[in-house]
């Protein structure tokens, strides 16, 4: 990571400090997945075209995250893209270094295997790198306010929910437990879990005021809030879950009912992630 021309307000030293934090964030966020066996095998078994699409979409989300809380204050979309690239770089380097340290990557590992394993780990790692500013600093109030202002608006809220859902869903999706839990549950239990997910999402967003509380316009009654935030939030959680399951090949050959069952299981953490997005993102 070369030091890029920084905005007038920060110098190269500040940027270097930001990069240092980014490495810390990358390792904190990616550690549970770096130590998950399924992630290593997914790196070699995931369909290449699906992995490519995932990497591209992750870049788009990183650019969005840079708007709402990247490791550096940004002024333009161009800067957001530079920061997203830097976060990706940090994520890839951190993942490769830790995987090599763990002996997952060795001299005998074929190149396509190395690339696949590092690529899939770079997704949570780059997320962590991007969010490090928020997580590892006390938070400079003026800057945070600026970010909050930028994230204001309904579209921004939905984007934050998506990022939060992706983050939490991705953390558990690779494990075999996701499909196993789906198989163990009866359809009645699945329906209950849908209800619990919805109620928890609603409660976390509004009662606990973790996300969107300050965004919900005055005069939004309970029903209106439920329709405007909770239902779309759960919809986002389901879409993110389906997309992650598809990327990992969990939907291949599966019947509609089985996919629905697994979707509800993964939708649970995704809904919580969407609700607490403000805490993390």
């Amino acid at each position: 990571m070369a030091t890029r021309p920084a905005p007038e307000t920060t110098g190269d030293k500040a940027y270097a400090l930001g990069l240092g934090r980014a490495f810390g964030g990358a390792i904190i966020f990616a550690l549970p997945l770096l130590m998950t066996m399924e992630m290593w095998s997914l790196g070699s078994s995931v369909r290449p075209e699906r992995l490519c699409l995932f990497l591209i979409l992750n870049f788009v989300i990183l650019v969005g995250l840079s708007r709402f809380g990247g490791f550096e204050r940004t002024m333009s979309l161009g800067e957001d893209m530079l920061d997203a690239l830097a976060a990706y770089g940090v994520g890839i380097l951190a993942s490769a270094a830790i995987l090599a340290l763990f002996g997952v990557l060795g001299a005998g590992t074929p190149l396509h295997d190395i690339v696949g394993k590092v690529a899939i780990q770079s997704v949570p790692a780059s997320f962590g790198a991007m969010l490090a500013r928020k997580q590892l600093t006390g938070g400079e109030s003026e800057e945070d306010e600026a970010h909050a202002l930028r994230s204001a608006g309904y579209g921004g809220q939905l984007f934050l929910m998506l990022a939060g859902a992706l983050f939490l869903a991705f953390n558990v999706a690779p494990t075999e437990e996701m499909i196993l839990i789906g198989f163990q549950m009866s359809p009645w239990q699945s329906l209950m879990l849908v209800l619990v997910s919805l109620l928890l999402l609603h409660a976390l967003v509004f009662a606990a005021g973790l996300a969107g509380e300050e965004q919900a316009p005055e005069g939004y009654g309970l029903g209106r809030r439920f329709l405007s935030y909770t239902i779309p939030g759960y919809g986002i959680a389901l879409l993110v879950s389906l997309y992650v399951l598809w990327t990992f090949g969990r939907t291949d050959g599966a019947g509609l009912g089985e996919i629905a069952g697994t979707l509800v299981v993964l939708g649970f953490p995704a809904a919580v992630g969407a609700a607490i997005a403000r805490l993390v993102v």
Partner: protein
Amino acid sequence: MADPTKGTTDTPLLEWIAAGIGLLLLLTLIAVIAREAIAEEHKELPAIELAVRGMAPAGTGFVVEVEATNRSGGTAAAVEIEAILKTGVTIVETSSASFDYVPGHSKATGGVFFTRDPRGHTLEVRPTGFQTP
């Protein structure tokens, strides 16, 4: 909670779209699961059907690709399959494999290896057992 009388009358279009899509996804999901719940198909015993999808030389032997289809709604885990090569009634070679999961109304693929070319013999494949997840 906010005062409901101060309501804003202009609902942004994006809110309508987001709520509509969310509602559609939720109702679809509930419909699929409710149908399963009412049909009680998940309580059925698994019905595994095997089909040979292809044969090819592999290393020093041969590989036969097998597709397992579960015709019932009940999920089977740890499905064991056995493949037998025969010439007339004489068993020439047997081989086996196992599938982690063959979910209800779903497919899983795997394969078995033989040292002899299966194309010159009669090949029989059958499931031998499973575990309830």
